[in-house]
């Protein structure tokens, strides 16, 4: 029983102990092992798998990253003249919170001074009104606006004015020091881009857009952004959660690398000539859509100048200064029906227009300037020669369409040179036909007329896309006949101006198609050359011999052909005129492609005016009486331009029989020696008096008069010293003008065209009629051939 009793009491006890053992072991497994598994897995995930992510996030909040701005590189022209430079200027910043603290401390100072009986601060109390009125005056801002910003005492950052000029920042700095406002008003250094020549080469250089992180917008500033910008430096400092410095210092400094400098192939002087001539033409010919002028070294493809009209001031790119655009804007502004929106839209449109580099962004039908390449192709292929003759009846009927020549009554019988000189369309249609569509298209490609030139200029249009030029299949196919005909005189396909001038250069430079370029050197801030651009030849298109024949024929265009208005006494100029159709009524692009010297071209130019305004709808003349054509407008301007450029480049004038000569000093010599000397100088002699030695001469030594002119020698007789009145010769033919001048003892110094036919009249005389001048003075008179052809293409 006792045994049994013990059993009954012990049995549940042992069972209970067993339960405790099992359940404790279970708990041990759970809390000692299993529970740690998810913890470890989670830790592994955070610390190893996602380590980089969290570390980056942590570092982002733990560090303060302040930038050290790099100096933007300078842009130089080919002669080292800076065209774009950066300078340090200041942003004026306001911290209303700090200002409030400064004001508080001022009040404390005053209180302390009162308590101790000492003198208070010796500067005025920095009230909001005081600060606002002074800053408003210095910076030309609205006082009420500054007051409003000062009232935001929670703000630490109010930008008052961006990039103030030095005079203003100096004034602000003085104001700050005088009034102890160092804690409140801040001058933060930043850079500003300056363009010393304002609008010079605006579309080529481009500008810096402060609204877009100071990145380049347009032009070189944009495409060479990476080179120019340099690398912004960084200062990384550790900060604690409160945003202040860490207990232990941690600072990483990455130096800013200044931007690289660009040296352009552009010559600022030539650029200036181009812009001036463009402006002059736009004004003279009442050009409505501006124009462009490109000057290039034909042997290298280096761009010497690149001007667009309308243009703008790079220092104020958003402003509109171009007279044509301003007039348009004014008209919109004054239109009572126009809304504010309409004005802003017009402004945006106008800004876009002045920023765009139309000589590369836009395409146009090249017109007769393209004939230079057709000529070269035909000569190279041997399908024509100088002895060939072409007959022009005034029109050609082709595939049912009548294509008229510029001269309605026809040029009649012409040899190759005259046909080019006349810019005769029927003749070129015939040449194109001889060449054949396949060959023609080959040359289109070889001269780079399809696709881009690859110039380092922003926004080059690709004419191989968008149906601007035919594809080979169509051109050489059965429907291509009319295309071949129109292509022969440069119509019905579009190229960019840079394409045209590059192709034309290949015609005259010995047949080398060069890749045009604008940047010649990239140097770092220390002046080490990083990149030097060598001229790149794309391909040889025609032979040197063919090129030489082309030069001769194209010189003839200026020497008596449609381009005769481009003639400059003493320079051998070759070229080709062009008047491009645009498809719009009364909208012509007049252009001139010129090069000089004709025997060894140093410069090639392409000058074009887009849309001179006809006097009345359908008229061929402007209200100023100018016949609308390349030969009558662009050529005359091109002549002046080329003379300036050649003179600047130091190309010597060469004189023919009629060229000016300098009168030598023959006073005191015998008649015989004087006569010989003058004869050698290509002058004739007339004597007055019968002495043995020359006592006087008219004109005086050193004067420049046309070759072949007569020099009057006074042999012992007194030389008349009275002055003579200059007669009016404007509108007279060359012969009449010469007679009128010689009758009063003056010389005619003719400039411009030398084909003194009945159509050639004096345009302008350098000395106004009625002016009294010395006897023997050479009066410079500019002549122009103002004969207009009939309506038609390609003249």
């Amino acid at each position: 029983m006792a045994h049994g009793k013990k059993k009954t009491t012990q049995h549940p006890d042992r069972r209970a102990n067993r339960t405790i053992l099992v359940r404790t072991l279970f708990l041990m497994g759970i809390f000692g092992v299993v529970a740690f598994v998810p913890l470890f897995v989670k830790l592994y995930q955070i610390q190893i798998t996602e380590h980089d992510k969290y570390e980056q996030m942590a570092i982002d909040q733990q560090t303060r990253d302040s930038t050290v701005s790099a100096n933007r590189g300078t842009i130089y022209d080919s002669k080292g003249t800076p065209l774009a430079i950066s300078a340090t200027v200041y942003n004026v910043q306001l911290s209303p919170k700090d200002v409030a603290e400064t004001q508080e401390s001022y009040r404390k100072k005053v209180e302390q001074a009162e308590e101790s009986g000492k003198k208070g601060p010796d500067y005025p109390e920095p009230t909001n009104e005081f600060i606002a009125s002074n800053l408003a005056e210095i910076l030309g801002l609205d006082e009420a606006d500054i007051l409003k910003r000062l009232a935001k005492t929670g703000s630490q950052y109010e930008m008052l004015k961006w990039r103030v000029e030095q005079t203003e920042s100096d004034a602000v700095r003085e104001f700050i020091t005088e009034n102890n406002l160092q804690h409140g008003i801040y001058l933060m250094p930043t850079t500003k881009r300056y363009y010393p020549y304002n609008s010079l080469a605006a579309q080529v250089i481009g500008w810096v857009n402060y609204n877009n992180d100071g990145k380049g917008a347009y032009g070189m500033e944009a495409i060479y952004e990476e080179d120019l910008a340099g690398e912004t430096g960084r200062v990384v400092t550790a900060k604690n959660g409160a945003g202040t410095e860490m207990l232990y210092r941690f600072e990483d400094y990455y130096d800013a690398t200044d931007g690289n400098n660009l040296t352009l192939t552009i010559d600022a002087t030539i650029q200036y000539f181009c812009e001036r001539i463009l402006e002059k033409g736009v004004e003279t010919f009442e050009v409505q859509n501006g124009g462009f002028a490109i000057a290039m070294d034909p042997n290298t493809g280096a761009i010497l100048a690149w001007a667009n009209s309308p243009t703008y001031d790079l220092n104020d790119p958003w402003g509109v200064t171009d007279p044509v655009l301003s007039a348009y804007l004014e008209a919109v502004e004054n239109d009572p029906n126009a809304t504010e929106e309409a004005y802003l839209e017009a402004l945006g449109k106008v800004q876009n227009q002045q920023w765009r580099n139309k000589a590369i962004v836009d395409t146009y039908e090249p017109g007769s300037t393209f004939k230079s390449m057709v000529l070269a192709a035909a000569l190279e292929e041997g399908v024509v020669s100088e002895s060939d003759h072409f007959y022009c009846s005034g029109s050609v009927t082709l595939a049912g369409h009548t294509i008229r020549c510029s001269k309605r009554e026809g040029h009649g019988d012409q040899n190759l040179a005259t046909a080019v000189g006349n810019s005769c369309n029927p003749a070129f249609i015939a040449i194109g036909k001889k060449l054949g569509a396949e060959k023609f298209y080959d040359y289109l490609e070889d001269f780079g007329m399809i696709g881009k030139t690859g110039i380092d200029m922003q926004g080059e249009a690709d004419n191989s896309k968008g149906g601007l030029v035919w594809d080979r299949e169509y051109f050489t196919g059965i429907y291509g006949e009319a295309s071949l005909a129109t292509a022969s005189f440069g119509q019905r396909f579009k190229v960019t101006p840079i394409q045209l001038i590059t192709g034309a250069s290949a015609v005259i430079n010995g047949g080398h198609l060069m890749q045009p370029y604008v940047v010649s050197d990239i140097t770092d801030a220390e002046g080490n050359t990083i990149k030097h651009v060598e001229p790149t030849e794309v391909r040889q298109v025609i032979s040197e011999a063919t090129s030489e024949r082309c030069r001769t024929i194209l010189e003839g265009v200026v020497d008596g052909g449609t381009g005769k208005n481009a003639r400059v006494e003493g320079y051998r100029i070759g070229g080709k005129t062009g008047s491009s159709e645009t498809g719009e009524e009364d909208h012509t692009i007049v252009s001139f492609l010129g090069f000089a010297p004709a025997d060894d071209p140093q410069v090639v130019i392409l000058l074009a005016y887009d849309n001179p305004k006809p006097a009345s709808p359908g008229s061929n003349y402007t209200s100023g009486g100018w016949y609308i054509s390349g030969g009558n407008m662009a050529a005359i301007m091109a002549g002046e331009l080329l003379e300036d450029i050649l003179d600047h480049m130091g190309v010597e004038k060469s004189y023919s029989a009629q060229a000016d000569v300098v009168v030598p000093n023959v006073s005191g010599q015998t008649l015989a020696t004087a006569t010989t000397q003058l004869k050698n100088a290509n002058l004739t002699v007339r004597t007055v008096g019968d002495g043995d030695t020359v006592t006087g001469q008219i004109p005086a030594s050193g004067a420049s008069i046309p070759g072949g002119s007569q020099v009057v020698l006074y042999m012992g007789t007194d030389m008349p010293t009275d002055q003579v009145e200059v007669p009016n010769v404007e509108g007279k033919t060359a012969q009449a003008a010469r007679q009128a001048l010689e009758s009063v003892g003056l010389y005619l110094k003719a400039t411009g065209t030398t084909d003194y036919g009945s159509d050639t009249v004096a345009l302008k005389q350098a000395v106004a009629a009625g002016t009294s001048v010395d006897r023997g003075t050479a009066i410079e008179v500019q002549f122009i051939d103002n004969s207009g052809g009939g309506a038609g293409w390609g003249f």
Partner: protein
Amino acid sequence: MPKLKRDLTMEEQLARGPVDMPFLMLVVLLTGIGVIMVFSASYATAFYSKSSGYNPTYYFVRQALFAVAGLAVMYITSKINYQSLRWMSVFVLGISIILLVLVLPFGYGRTTVGAQRWIAIPLVGSFQPSEIAKLGVILYFSARLSKRNTEKQRRLNPRSYLSGVAGLLDRIGLLELVPYVVILGIIAFLMMKEPHMSGTILIMAGAAAVLFAAGIKLYWFIGGAAGLCGLLVLMMSGYQSKRILVWKDPWAYPKDGGYQIIQSLYAIGSGGLLGLGLGKSRQKFLYLPEPENDFIFAIVCEELGLVGAAVVLILFALLIIRGYWIAIHARDRFGALLVVGITTLLAVQVFLNIAVVTNLLPTTGISLPFFSYGGTALMIQLLEMGIVLSVSRQIPAPKQG
């Protein structure tokens, strides 16, 4: 004159046995690492804070003093024959309930953290009555449950018409649960008044572990767990739901609620495999709020890397396993249950703290034993370890041969 060994009773002889060295070493090691980490984690906060007098060693010195005092308390406790805790348990529980009542009108914390959890003792510092309640509950439950089988069955008059119902209730084990449920109910009610959600969870967990080990029928735990889940779902629909949203995507609430966990993850993630090096945490520089407190483990991870964190985890795991080992080998059921309760409490606290710091679970304020700054909490912690050591002294030596 000390008594000789032969003069001692059997019980007294056992109480003089050696303490469990592995457990002691682990406690000392963790306490040491904890104090060092408090120093590392707190000195930036202390340096920048006015309340600590801009003294970077402010927290460290305090924690170190309490650690030394706590180790002394542990030693003394380990010397006490834990059998005397049987009768003390009623008083500890009673005092803790009184303190839980008193903390509501006389404590503080509502203005700073929105919960009335602390009672200040002049000169010593402050403590949370809930810490004492944890101990009280485990002591009382262990003492009572250890006698579960030997208790005299109370029998109702079989003729009473209640006897049928009571008999049924008794058979399914409900009747014996009543006192425990009532005690836990009172404590939970009082603590939710503070409110102190995490403390309540810990007390529940400790109590449940003791009940579980004591052999309470499993279906009550299943039922209890189900009931708790239901309660949790109910709570989620209320103000606590924000916690769940923050838990799911802290970055969606960087300002309200997510900040601390985001900073914690930054710290842990920055640590990588080997860490930034002891003392080189960057997140403690005013980014991670109170880095010396509940989120100290994040700083451990940042400074010591995954390797360091794993070492700390392993030390905790070893301590916990050793704790249960002591429980299994304890001389009697009271000792076993006592150690199971204390060890489980520690384990749950470690698990919940690290789970919260790593965003495995939604944020709730649970400190990391031996690591988190808090003098009295550390002392109570070490006192509990002393009790475990005391139990370990009486483990009978394995029989020879």
